């Protein structure tokens, strides 16, 4: 059985591929594989980056650096925006550089868990976080235990996680079975991201450099992932090992639990509460885009004038 999905239609192969026409670069981003860094570089080198849009975004993006994933900020079109003929021409032309990146599946799974589940960044994991509760030791979070619970839940309820592309196998995105990649780098190996930057510099004449966005908690994978957990993840992502020939890393048979301090646990709680609130604010903000809302605003403005500013006198009251 193939390590890649059966669907080899152009749409399936290039759904996420971004196009930088000036540089003649195609980039197929894989989440949790330095895609934020690479997109920033690509948009900067292509000259399409628009930072003025950032304050106007209403999506629940939890960090400024993550706004690059918005098409208005990056200014990069998708390959699917082009006709099939144009897309095929780009994919097959020797003038175009097709770039993609890969990462050790266990490290990627840890990064996805830490970001999407542990820190609650907005995602689409079915069943919320019930499948992956924190493991607590005296009221403090045990990262080792919590990550192990996730690995088990992922293995047992894989479909629930696969709605979120952060958890989908890399072989579902990087389709070496059907598409030619001119530059396929391992971002967790020295010089991986730098080699992409060098290509972007050469093609754009700019001096783009990779920047670390440093949004993780800074925990070493070997400190929280034991052999049992790693084996579960390797089994879940077996197709990635098969498709890309990743080496199966060795992990310690048993680990001392990595237990957060009281202050760290409290900070994680605060972050989660704020993420939850940002989601609400974003949803509320997005509801202010409709003809009905517009009509209410007109009525309120009229009433405000009629009452000499007594009614709806603050932006808070204008919002309803």
């Amino acid at each position, binding site marked *: 059985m193939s390590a890649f999905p059966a669907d080899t239609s152009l749409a399936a192969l290039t759904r996420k591929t971004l196009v930088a026409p000036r540089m003649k670069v195609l980039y197929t981003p894989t989440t949790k594989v330095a895609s934020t860094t690479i997109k920033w570089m690509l948009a900067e080198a292509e000259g399409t980056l628009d930072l003025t849009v950032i304050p106007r975004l209403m999506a629940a993006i939890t960090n400024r650096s993550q706004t690059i994933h918005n098409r208005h900020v990056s200014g990069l079109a998708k390959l699917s925006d082009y006709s099939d003929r144009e897309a095929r021409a780009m994919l097959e032309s020797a003038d175009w550089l097709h770039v993609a990146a890969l990462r050790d599946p266990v490290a990627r799974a840890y990064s996805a868990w830490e970001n999407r589940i542990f820190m609650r960044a907005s995602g689409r994991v079915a069943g919320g976080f019930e499948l992956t509760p924190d493991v607590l030791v005296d009221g403090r979070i045990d990262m080792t235990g919590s990550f192990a619970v996730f690995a088990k839940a992922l293995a047992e309820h894989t479909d629930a996680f696969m709605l979120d592309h952060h958890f989908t196998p890399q072989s579902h995105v990087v389709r070496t079975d059907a598409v030619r990649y001119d530059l396929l780098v391992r971002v967790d190996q020295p010089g991986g991201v730098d080699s992409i930057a060098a290509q972007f510099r050469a093609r754009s004449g700019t001096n783009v450099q990779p920047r670390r966005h440093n949004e993780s908690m800074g925990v070493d994978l070997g400190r929280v992932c034991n052999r049992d957990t790693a084996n579960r993840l390797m089994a879940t992502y077996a197709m990635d090992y098969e498709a890309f020939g990743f080496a199966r890393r060795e992990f310690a048979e048993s680990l001392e639990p990595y237990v957060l301090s009281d202050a760290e646990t*409290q900070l994680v709680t605060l972050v989660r509460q704020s993420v939850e609130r*940002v989601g609400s604010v974003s949803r509320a903000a997005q509801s202010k885009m409709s003809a009905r809302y517009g009509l209410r605003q007109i009525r309120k403005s009229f009433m405000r004038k009629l009452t000499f500013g007594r009614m709806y006198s603050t932006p808070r009251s204008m919002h309803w």
Partner: protein
Amino acid sequence: MAPDADPLRVVAGLALVAPRIKVMYLPTPKAACTTIKSVLAAAEGSHRPEMAERLAVMHVSQAQTIHHPRVHGLPRLDDLSKREQHEVLHSPDWLRVASVRDPISRAYSAWENRIFLRAHRRTTKLAELAHDVLTDGKVDLTASFANFAKVLGDDADPFMADHHFQPQSLLVRPDLVNYSLLVRVDQAGEIDSFARIVSERSGKQIVASRLNEGLGVKVERVCDAHTANRLMATYEMDYETFGFTRRSWPAIVEPYLLGDMESRLVTHYRSLFARSISVSRESQRRVGARYGFGQMRRGFWRLLRREHDPYDPREVQP
């Protein structure tokens, strides 16, 4: 407070009333006001937590949305007629409540929340004035809090626009309001006893739930005698007005250095809050007739083009 403002009018603008259970509450920020508002709104039956989902205003958590009038549902004293206001302020049937707290604990709590965690859109300038202090390249909570106490002591004015830093005596105004109850929130059982009184008046079983939204660092761990003395001087009027005991503080406190992960989490929290303020601001810009006309025009075009999908959340509108 504007120098020419009528002080009673200012109090009336801040005080909340629960007409059904006849309680007036003057909220003091960082003196359990979130808990007390929640208790009061639950007892009065005016609490509408579901409204939080419709608010495009950033609060640090869903629990904090209780501060929004649409969520707590309690009118302000100012919203009542003059006759009603007089009754609230003078009738023995009404319970007039305020809460107070040891000024140093309160100053620490305000600093931690508003300045250190940047948990409010208006405190960016204050955070620049009372910046982080690093020791050996790590954020030092003890030194950062000491720096805040110094900056506040040297020039309190920039901070006083924020109620969280105002002396409690200026907010509570016991010289103007004849309070039936002053809740000392840092003394054991005081909030619970307030909840019991409110339960009796409402006929409901109300329990005060503790909201743990700080870093969990005790003020004693980061405040030395020098810092405490500065704060006692800044909040001198609170000691005079409410007779707070001047606590003893150690001459020297070991630096409280944040670990690598703690620093990352604090940075993440600050970025998250900055981003959410941006969303909230953008949302608040979307008011007024002109915006309304724009939305109607867009709606009309969508109708003409038979677009039925909801607006894409990624969409950026002019």
